[in-house]
């Protein structure tokens, strides 16, 4: 974990409301697939807190990029960054996606901008002997493009696409093809890697349980610090002694990646 002032190398719009920010760091970092950073334009006063962004890609020890959707004041401020502008960044944060020996067949499921935290995972799976299928869900073709569609296509992995409006791929939610795949080929041998909004993660977890499929999810929670000290980003865990110490874990340091079965899904960690 390093605290550094990065320099924006480019900040390109992939689709309306979706940008790819590439920055140069002053020091070397070793980033694992699925890890994130806390970022903010240098010397910006409002909003005060930094924003959590997954490291989308690593271009070298000192160059990384972030793929982000413009939501409110924080991401809008990032969207105004131009080449040469400075960015305060703390990284890498959180745990990484693991591809252990148990994994023979992988299903990567991403909803919307959740794609940002799985591209590097897909790269590693593509270069491994693990049979991999990538499921990307988005609101529309525009959003899919904004969420890095071309980068995923370039990996050459089998890709299943769904959009809410049917403008690209199959119309509907990404959980539909997931369920189909598990029903047709069985779930036991597979491992699901998922990232997306809370509601989707919850549904994916249900499906995984139904088919006895191993499932890892990367979660979101409002973050004060990103490195474990504010204890504001917690999710509720299944514990034998409910409401005892340990019922809540920090997404930023105990996660952001958790085994789906460990989460108490009825307790939504997000503010909105």
């Amino acid at each position, binding site marked *: *974990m390093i*605290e550094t002032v990065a320099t924006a190398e480019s900040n390109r719009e992939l689709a309306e409301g979706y940008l790819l920010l590439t920055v140069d760091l002053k020091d070397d970092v070793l980033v694992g697939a699925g890890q994130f950073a*806390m970022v*903010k334009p240098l010397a910006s*006063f*409002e*909003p*005060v*807190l*930094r924003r959590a962004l997954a490291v989308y890609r690593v271009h070298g020890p000192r160059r990384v990029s972030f793929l982000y959707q413009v939501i409110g004041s924080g991401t809008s401020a990032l969207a105004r960054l131009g080449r040469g502008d400075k960015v*305060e960044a*703390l990284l890498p944060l959180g745990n990484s996606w693991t591809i252990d020996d148990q994994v023979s067949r992988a299903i990567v499921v991403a909803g919307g901008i959740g794609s940002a935290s799985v591209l590097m995972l897909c790269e590693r799976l593509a270069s491994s002997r693990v049979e991999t299928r990538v499921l990307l869900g988005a609101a529309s073709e525009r959003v899919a493009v904004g969420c890095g569609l071309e980068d995923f296509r370039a990996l050459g992995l089998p890709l299943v696409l769904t959009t809410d409006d049917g403008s690209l791929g199959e119309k509907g939610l990404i959980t539909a093809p997931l369920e189909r795949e598990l029903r047709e080929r069985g779930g036991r041998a597979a491992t699901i890697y998922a990232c997306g909004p809370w509601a989707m993660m919850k549904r994916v977890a249900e499906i995984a349980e139904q088919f006895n499929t191993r499932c890892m999810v990367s979660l979101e*929670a*409002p*973050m*004060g*610090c*990103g*490195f*474990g*000290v*504010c*204890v*504001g*980003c*917690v*999710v*509720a865990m299944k514990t034998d002694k409910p*409401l*005892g*110490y*340990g*019922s*809540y874990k920090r997404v930023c340091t105990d996660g952001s990646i958790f085994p789906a079965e460990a989460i108490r899904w009825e*307790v*939504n*960690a*997000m*503010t*909105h």
Partner: protein
Amino acid sequence: MAGPIDNDRRLAVEIAGIHFNNPVIGASGTFGYGLEFAELVDLNRLGGFATKGLSARPLPGNPPPRIVETHGGMLNAIGLQNIGARAFIEEKLPLLRSYDTRIIANVFGYSDDDYIEAIEILNDGEGISAYELNISCPNVKEGGIVIGNSPSSAARLTEKAKRASTRPLVVKLSPNVTDIAELARAIVASGADCLSLINTIVGMSIDVNTRRPRLSYGTGGLSGPAIRPIAVRMVFEVSQAVSVPLIGIGGIASTMDALEFLIAGATAVQIGTANYYDPTVTMKVAEGLSSFCKANGIGRISSLVGSLRTQ
């Protein structure tokens, strides 16, 4: 990261007999157990830090969402999730002892007895410099602010805590009161060696779409730059009412901010929320104070304390 402050004697301050390398202290709940920052800041360059609120037994804290951002700050309702006094002594203190920095154990309980029990456990902990009695946490149904907003109950607990404690006692004031000077007098009269202020201000944020509070707890404590003017005013008021040393807290994010509190009457400052969005801020402020002294020919930073000119 190198700086002159290791040996900048000008910054040294003393509070209740405790020597601090400089007046910059990490605030409770924003500095973890200190070790989380070891990778980012040189703890030896800080005056010290206050631990997350420690209770006799570990606490799970409140359900999420626990924080929400607001203009110039944030609301939190963590609910004092902590590993407990015993675990702190066994797991954290041994590692912390290697640093030349003052460790203030922030103490919390749901009742007077809880507080005393936590203090008695911590009395065994070697390397703790002082206790900070958190009777100002707004995010619990019992203890904290429930005790701290009433001069009489605050005084009663202070007296018990002082008796139980083998170390200097800092009492942390709640800003959610009509007359903080009166509260301060009552607490000092009951034996507090130092007062720290302010804790967070009770606030609420509502999600218009769901028509629910944005925090699961309903209300939360407001912190960050937004509250600084309120904190500076309260430090000044209290400095006029009592003679024990004060630790100023509230929205400090820069050297100039810290200086405002010293001039208002604080012997030292604690930096809280700024650690989240600027993890090395404590070290930057310590270095900034050093440069300020140099630039202004100030021999001892303590000469600034309470130097506010009012006509």
